[in-house]
């Protein structure tokens, strides 16, 4: 009832106010008549404006009406001091913008990475595991079918494996990436092609049985000129005519974080795109990257239990291929096989960092507000004196804070919008394929940003809250004097506290940046076990051009001869895979003469198929035995070169040369031992690995490694000419050094360093501004004291020291606090740090140095200004 009456009042408040005024007027006139004295009547009536306010306040305690007034006053106040307003809004915009940008990246990369895909909240990544090995493995097709048959808690299994081809249309050949998918793919993720159809059940069965493809909207627009009659047309992909059966909707990029897919083919075409032998019936061939969609209400743990039970049955049913193999489910944001997994630690740290930046920005603006509220103390005092209560004042001040943070939030969202695609820029460019790591600004991000804005408002509101609670009517009339050394002044602890907070937070960020930089340096300086300079690599996409093995071998031989004949080339070798690249090495269960594996383990080792002279070309030392030669071909005795880690593990100190090794049912003779090098990641530990001659396990379209003293650009043109001479339809991929390859593989670390560096620099700047502002203010407030000291004979250097020491004391307190927090928390960076202690003295030392220099710079100007003051004038004023 009361609420309804309040509402009625609210909608008729003008009339109500008029009526109240009228009846109070009547009251006054009656009193006048009674006493005959106008002034006496007024006295008896009391402050009628206040009464009217109070009467209204009975109905509208929330003061909805006064909010509008507060907003107007707030805007007027901000306009009156534009310097303050701009600085405050800028600080907050940076703080809120950094938050919104990181939120949008996390949303767009980790939580809702796949535009148009339905039910992403129930989507999980699924991989294999191998007992005794960290990380994940891919899954074989037969295993996946068995999981699909036996798991009751899963709605759908979606297979997706990224691959590439060279798409030749008209006179343009372009590297294009696509996915090998299960036939249920489009139906399961709820994406419906805008033209034609998705894949039909059964299209993922058989060897090269269903050459059909669905193309992306972008590809359809750019390469097929949006041909409305595209469905049913043929397109040659990797040498096989595919029928285009569908066009995916605009904005659908597939299901791989980081790269947008341009076409999709069913799993039956795997042989054509994956290379190697037919894998759909091979339980030992693990090549699938996959997702599952859980049934509604099923938790990851429940599904994991069921999967593990099925995996265990597979272990007993198929010991030869599945012994020691498990299945693991991952939340989408931890997906290990795409950029979600690689960016997760970076984004996690960024989240903490942007909160710090926001806190620093808030502390800065808080300090500005404090200084200003000091200047506005007179206004506040007057308002209290004429009867404003404190909550009313506080409401006004909080409204002003809200205006600041709302403007900043708007600016922040703009910043986030501009930064949507900024993450991609931090990754090294690759010829041919464009990376996409879009931030997503959806309602969740907006809600979070609004929350951040509210938190900022509350933090800012704390300052005036403390301020107004201290208004002392009597005391405010006396002028207050504060001093640099006096220290006991009322609000100085708050100002100092905010500065100490800023300094400690930015010190923390500096330490973090230092640790990451050093870690990156260590990674860059790491010896990968092969030459990083003077070795170039590239590839020619023979498979995309439809070469069969026989033609490819001829081409390889001819190209090798031509390149070797070029001036400045030391050596050239082919290899199926390149170290540290996305493409995986072959791997196979092995058996070794005289080695008895533990009962529940099936030793599996990765290997590479390489041409003659590969080790010499790569600069991988050969420890004993010999390299492959041209004589190690299809008809010769199958041979292998193992690395020393493998020799140590499986031959236990015996010389493996001349011993035998069984791979995929074939016995190979070990002819050499190579030194261990890095294979998949520069950070991996030494692990067993072996090489087989490319000719004894051939694959079309191998990588070309070239050792030369000439620069890459020179070789690139000559190489392109030679390839063109052999086949006018072919062009080599970009030619890069192995160092570039390492840089690409360590890009997550570099992204982390860059981001933290930028935000750390921002934080340092904000903190320096904060320190400068406080020092300037302190000096201006204690000009009388300083003047007095000067008049009493203190010289300039003494004053300089006095002021500087105050600022440096604040800095020291901040550094000590920051260092304490850093020592306790940098271990959380664990995963991003490589061979750097979280307590690394160099990182702490350089952070200290940078902070000190910044603090000196921030304190010097105000201090210097203090010494320039004219004591006579100050004391006279």
């Amino acid at each position, binding site marked *: 009832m009361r609420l309804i009456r309040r509402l009625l*009042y609210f909608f008729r408040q003008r009339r109500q106010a008029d009526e*109240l005024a009228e*009846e*109070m007027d009547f009251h006054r006139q009656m009193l006048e008549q009674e006493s005959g004295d106008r002034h006496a009547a007024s006295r008896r009536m009391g*402050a009628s404006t206040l*009464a009217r306010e*109070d*009467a*209204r306040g*009975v109905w509208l305690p929330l003061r909805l009406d006064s909010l509008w007034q507060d907003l107007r006053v707030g805007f007027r106040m901000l306009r009156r001091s534009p310097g303050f307003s701009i600085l405050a809004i800028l600080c907050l915009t940076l703080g809120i913008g950094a938050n919104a940008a990181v939120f949008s990246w996390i949303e767009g990369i980790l939580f809702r990475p796949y535009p148009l895909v339905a039910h992403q909240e129930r989507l999980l990544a699924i991989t294999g595991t191998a007992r005794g090995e960290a990380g994940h493995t891919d899954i074989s097709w037969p295993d996946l079918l068995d999981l699909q048959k036996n798991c009751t808690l899963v709605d759908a299994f979606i297979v997706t494996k990224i691959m590439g081809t060279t798409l030749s249309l008209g006179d343009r050949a372009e590297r294009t990436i696509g996915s090998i998918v299960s036939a249920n793919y489009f139906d399961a993720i709820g994406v419906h092609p805008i033209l034609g159809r998705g894949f039909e059940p059964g299209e993922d069965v058989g060897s090269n049985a269903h050459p059909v493809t669905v193309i992306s909207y972008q590809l359809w627009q750019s390469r097929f000129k949006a041909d409305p009659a595209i469905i049913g047309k043929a397109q040659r992909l990797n040498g096989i005519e595919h029928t285009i059966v569908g066009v995916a909707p605009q904005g659908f990029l597939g299901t791989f974080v980081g790269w947008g897919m341009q076409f999709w083919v069913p799993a039956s075409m795997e042989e054509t795109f994956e290379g190697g032998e037919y894998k759909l019936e091979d339980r030992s061939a693990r090549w699938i990257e996959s997702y599952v969609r859980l049934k509604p209400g099923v938790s990851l743990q429940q599904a994991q239990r069921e999967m593990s039970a099925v995996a265990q049955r597979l272990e007993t049913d198929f010991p030869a291929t599945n012994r020691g193999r498990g299945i693991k489910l991952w939340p989408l944001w931890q997906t290990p096989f795409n950029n979600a997994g690689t960016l997760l630690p970076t984004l996690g740290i960024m989240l903490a960092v942007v909160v710090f930046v926001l806190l620093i920005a808030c502390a800065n603006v808080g300090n500005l507000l404090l200084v200003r509220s000091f200047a506005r103390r007179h206004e506040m005092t007057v308002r209290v004196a004429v009867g404003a209560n404190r909550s009313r004042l506080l409401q006004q001040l909080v409204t002003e804070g809200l205006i600041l943070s709302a403007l900043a939030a708007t600016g922040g969202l703009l910043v986030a919008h501009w930064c949507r695609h900024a993450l991609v820029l931090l990754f090294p460019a690759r010829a041919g394929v464009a990376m996409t790591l879009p931030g997503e600004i959806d309602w969740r991000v907006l809600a979070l940003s609004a929350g951040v804005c509210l938190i900022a408002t509350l933090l800012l509101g704390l300052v005036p809250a403390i301020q107004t609670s201290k208004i002392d009517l009597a005391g405010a009339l006396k002028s207050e004097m504060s001093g640099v050394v006096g220290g006991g002044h009322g609000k100085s602890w708050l100002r100092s506290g905010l500065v100490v907070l800023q300094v400690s937070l930015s010190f923390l960020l500096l330490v973090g940046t230092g640790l990451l930089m050093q870690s990156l340096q260590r990674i860059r300086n790491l010896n990968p076990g092969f030459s990083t300079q003077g070795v170039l690599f590239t590839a020619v996409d023979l498979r995309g051009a439809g070469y069969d093995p026989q033609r490819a071998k001829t081409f390889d031989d001819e190209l090798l001869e031509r390149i070797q004949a070029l001036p400045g080339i030391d050596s050239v070798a082919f290899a199926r895979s390149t170290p540290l690249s996305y493409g995986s090495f072959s791997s196979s269960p092995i058996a070794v003469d005289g080695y008895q594996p533990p009962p529940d383990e099936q030793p599996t080792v990765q290997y590479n198929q390489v041409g003659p002279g590969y080790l010499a070309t790569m600069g991988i030392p050969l420890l004993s035995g010999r390299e492959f030669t041209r004589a190690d071909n299809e008809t010769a005795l199958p041979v292998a070169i193992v690395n020393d880690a493998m020799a140590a593990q499986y031959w236990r100190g015996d010389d493996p040369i001349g011993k035998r090794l069984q791979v995929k049912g074939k016995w190979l003779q070990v002819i050499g031992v190579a030194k261990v090098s890095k294979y998949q990641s520069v950070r991996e530990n030494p692990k067993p690995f072996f090489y087989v001659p490319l000719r004894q396990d051939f694959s079309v379209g191998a990588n070309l490694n070239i050792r030369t003293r000439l620069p890459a650009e020179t070789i690139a043109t000559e190489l392109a000419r030679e390839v063109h001479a052999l086949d006018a339809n072919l062009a080599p991929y970009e030619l890069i050094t192995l160092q570039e390859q390492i840089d690409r593989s360590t890009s997550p670390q570099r992204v982390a360093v860059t981001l933290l560096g930028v935000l750390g620099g921002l934080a340092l700047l904000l903190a320096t501004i904060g320190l400068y502002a406080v020092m300037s203010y302190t000096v201006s407030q204690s000009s009388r004291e300083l003047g007095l000291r000067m008049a009493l004979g203190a010289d300039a250097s003494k004053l300089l020291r006095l002021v500087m020491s105050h600022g440096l004391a604040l800095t020291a307190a901040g550094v000590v606090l920051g260092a304490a927090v850093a020592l306790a928390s940098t271990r959380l960076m664990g995963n991003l740090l490589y061979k750097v202690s979280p307590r690394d003295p160099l990182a702490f030392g350089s952070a200290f140095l940078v902070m000190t220099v910044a603090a000196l710079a921030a304190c010097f100007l105000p201090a210097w200004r203090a010494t320039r003051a004219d004591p006579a004038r100050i004391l006279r004023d």
Partner: protein
Amino acid sequence: MGKGNDLLPGTLDMLVLSSLTRGARHGYGIAQHLKKISADVLDVGESSLYPALQRLMLNGWVTSEWGASENNRRARYYKLTAAGRKQLAAENKEFDRMIVAIQKVMSCA
């Protein structure tokens, strides 16, 4: 400012309600009535009276309508509602209890 401020909290509301038991009055009339009955002890100013009246209206204990005053001017008359009568009775009882309690305490002092 009116002396109503020195009353026990809530007493002013009760006094206003009681002054309306014999029929509708306008604001000035209420103030006059209280002053007369209390022999000039209770001189309620508008800064207390009008917020109190608004409070009573908000609670639904009085209603108001505009009418002509004794000297033929427009004035707002307040009238007790049924809920207001019930409230007054309750407050009367509570007030009596309170006075007895206060008297007991004071007589012991």
